[in-house]
């Protein structure tokens, strides 16, 4: 029985993914202005910003965005997953990064800002501090765009089904920009 349910959930999510990737539409409509930030300070946020810009969507990128930066923002894109290299800024630690992310998510909810979660760093961004960040950001997202390399254990598939979060699984992280951009068109 459990296998059947899992299969149905997976099929539903895959259908959702193909829907988004095929250009027939997106699971949700997003509005400008859009702020791109990171949770975990990997360069995946910078990649998301670059790809979104290349796809023709003007965006603001702040790796360490704070609640005050959400003023007038309609959509918040969070590229999540940790990287040690990002913790070079003064005062940034694992604890401060988790707290900043919590504050951002809470403020976005309060201001009714759409939150799109992007997990495009693959398996690399699933363990250690990334685990805490993933478990914080993914359930709070209204749409998840995930490189399937980071979903080998089906975590995102299961979460998306349980929380009824649209999930777009992608085969290439570099596809994510066009898929995300479609939500703004």
């Amino acid at each position, binding site marked *: 029985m459990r296998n059947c349910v899992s299969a149905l959930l997976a099929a539903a999510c895959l259908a959702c993914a193909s829907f988004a990737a095929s250009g027939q539409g997106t699971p949700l409509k997003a509005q400008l202005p859009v702020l791109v930030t990171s949770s*975990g*300070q*990997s*360069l*995946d946020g*910078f*990649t998301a910003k*670059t*790809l979104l810009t290349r796809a023709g969507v003007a965006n603001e990128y702040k*790796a360490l965005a704070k609640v005050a930066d959400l003023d007038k923002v309609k959509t918040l894109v969070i590229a999540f997953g*940790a*990287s*040690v*290299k*990002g*913790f*070079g*800024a*003064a005062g*940034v*630690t*694992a*604890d401060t990064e988790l707290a900043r992310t919590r504050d951002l998510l809470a403020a976005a909810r309060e201001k009714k800002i759409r939150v799109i979660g992007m997990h*495009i*760093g*693959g*398996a*690399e*961004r699933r*363990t*250690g*501090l*990334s685990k805490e960040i993933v478990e914080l950001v993914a359930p709070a997202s209204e749409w998840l765009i995930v*490189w399937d*390399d980071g979903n080998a254990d089906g975590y995102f598939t299961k979460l998306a089904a349980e929380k009824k979060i649209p999930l777009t699984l992608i*085969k*290439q*992280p*570099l*596809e994510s920009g066009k898929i995300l951009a479609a939500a703004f068109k």
Partner: protein
Amino acid sequence: MSTISAPCIRKSTVGILSASVFLIFAGQASAVDRTIVAKNGMVVAGHPLAVESGIRALRAGGTACDAAIATAATLSVMMPDMMGPAGSGFALLWDAKKKDLSAIDYDGVAPKATNAAQYTLEKKLRGFWAPTVPANLKGWEAVHRKCGKLKWASLWEDAIGYAETGRPLDFDGAFHIRRHVTELGIYDGWNKEFLVNGNAPAVGALQIRKDLAATYRLFAKMGSKALYGGSVGDKLVAYMQKNGGLISKEDLLAYKVIWRKPIETNYRGHKVYGTPPPSAAVTWMQMLNVLEGYDLKALKHNSFEYLNTMVEVSKHAYMDSYKYVADPAFVNIPIEKMLSKDYAVEIRQRIAAGRFDMKTVKQASLDLPSKTATSHMSVIDRWGNAVSMTNTLGNFWGSGIVVEGTGLLLSNGMDWFDIDENVWTGEKPGNLVMAPGKRNRWTLAPGMLFKNDKLYMVVGGAGAESTMYGIAQPIVNMIDFDMDAFAAVSAPRVIWGDTYHYTGGTEVHLQPGIPEDIRARMKAAGHNVPDIGKNRNVAAGTTNVIVIDPASGTYSGAAARQGRDFVSGY
């Protein structure tokens, strides 16, 4: 000058890595393993095929310097994530006949257009502002001019062949491409050079790099002029201009390698030498200098008392490393004091008094499953000449910028400058601040040890800040605990602090193999010891070494079991 003949199996060679790989070259068998004993020559380096290129140079009558260049050239094709001709490096060269030890600094410099105020963490880490001026090619050429015997061009033959006909992708090669697709795939050059339709190639794929082969042909024919003032350099400058990068033709023409006097200390009757700052060899040398005042043998290897001592000593050496080690043209470095016996006494007194005045403690994240980001080689020839050479691109894949039409990957040396607070001193920023023309501090730290005026050991390593732990502890293992070379480099180590250059951290990483009761005692003593696998510092410090037996003259080469290096000899 003689030349090396082309490898008869170049087109059919496959790079399958295992603990022991046997390759047949021109009817001569050369074993490649983690540890080997040989009499006539030896190379320890980051890839079996690169090691074989070095051995081929030695067999052809080349010197250790020739072998080092041949190894480096092939390694730059086999490990493009780790090093290449546009990166930075340091080397110690021992001329056995002249009894002359020299140190060469071919560290890249910050471009003249550098403005620290305009940098962000992203900009210094990846992209067109991240590279320092290319340096390795000029360094390798200088090494060859000083002590090479074979024709320069012949040393590039293997590398050109592998670039032309294909780099066989092994597990590490494929893994390090895949894990960087998101971060580096946005750079067109890297994307085209290393991905296939936007995807990482699989293990077993052949990575053909025609542009790189053409560039290496120019390097082989023209030497460094091809890059510093020649057509390859012109392409680099044009690509920089097209993309808002900083490196100019003026930067390339101004770049110079520097021959420096090796720094020295003593450890239990051994003369210990390292490359001077901005190399960080002084750090492991300072550790040895302070450790000499303890009876480590009595403490017993990896006992609680031993590990505790190692941690306390390393704290002081690393704090000094961040406080003082930088470009000596820009800052005053009290190197004689740092390696003096009086200062060692002072540090031991501070340790005894429980004094350690670190300004800030920051914790980094964890989860980088990789091993190293640099590559060291140890080389010795039949005459006893030796090279201890470490090359790097900085982070994995350097800046991620591959110069259009050249296949040449640029470093991210700029990331190793500070634009923010120095976490050790609290200065904002301190000696490591970016400045035009400045050389950055590296954890590259080649060394050599001598006993009774005879070369005893060629040593070096990789693994960011773990490098210096990875050199100091194996030396102690061999000298204090009589371990053989392989046991010494493979024995579990203690590493204090997080790995990366900007964060101190306070975790004590006890590598697997250190017993649970010792771990418990370290925790009870107040050390921040995470559970196995949960430590934030994941780099172990990849060490390789050649030890010369004083009686027989044989060479014992060893590469750490947990590392990526291999050894071959004949």
